[in-house]
């Protein structure tokens, strides 16, 4: 009964990490570097359901963050010889962050966060009512 707070809470923390990474990606989207390896690359979380054992398969299971993957997309190459970080050929490499993708991710994460929060609120209400069962 009380594990619902755990389940929805794990959803909250997973989604807030996702929001955090989206913020980080957007903040670093204009980063440039002189070589393709040195530039920031977009980070995304990998979620996994927390059902490992038979017992938790029968019960509910929250979500956990398995890890954070850096995007393997190639950085954006730009010819900008005046840039202080440009290499010998006058090229700079910008972060491979796709702002449109990040915005879509942000909306999805905030919706999921809201729904988990709503679950917690509803369940808290129900539990409070259950606690006062038979009074008055």
């Amino acid at each position, binding site marked *: *009964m009380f*594990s*619902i707070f755990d*389940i*929805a809470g*794990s*959803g909250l923390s*997973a*989604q807030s990490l*996702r929001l955090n990474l989206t913020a980080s990606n957007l903040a670093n989207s204009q980063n440039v570097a002189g070589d393709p390896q040195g530039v920031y690359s977009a980070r995304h979380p*990998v*979620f*996994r*359901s927390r059902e490992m054992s038979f017992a938790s*398969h*029968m*019960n*509910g*299971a*929250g*979500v956990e963050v398995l890890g954070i993957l850096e995007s393997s997309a190639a950085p954006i190459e730009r010819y900008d010889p005046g840039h202080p970080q440009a290499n010998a050929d006058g090229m700079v490499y910008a972060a491979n962050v796709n702002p449109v993708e990040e915005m879509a991710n942000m909306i*999805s*994460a905030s*919706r*999921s966060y809201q*729904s*988990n929060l*709503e*679950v917690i609120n*509803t*369940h808290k*209400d*129900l539990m409070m*009512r*259950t606690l006062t*069962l*038979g009074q*008055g």
Partner: protein
Amino acid sequence: MFGQSIFGVHEQALNLRAHRTEVLATNLANADTPGFKARDFDFSATLSGAATGQGQGLQATHARHIQTSSAQRPALAYRNPFQPARDGNTVEADLEFARFAENSIAYQASLRFLSGRISTLRMAIGGR
């Protein structure tokens, strides 16, 4: 007046509703988990099984048999999604949320019934 339980089927119904809340909360928490399959159980079948004392699972004829399912732990089934995602996730958050709302209303209904039953008994005990 008192059958096997004063509270009728609502005692078990409340337990099952609480368990279903857990299952639906799991679906909602995993709405973005790749490969996660949404699950639920047949509430009315499980409840009638619990009310008649018959679980849905395999019958254990030996003390060391593993209990497959009971009224407390109903057999979960995978949901048939209308729009499965490419990553294998079958949670449809809006539908899950609708079911969650329905489930919590039903929980409150059972709770209201239990409250009414308790106040009836109090009235009888108090002789008012």
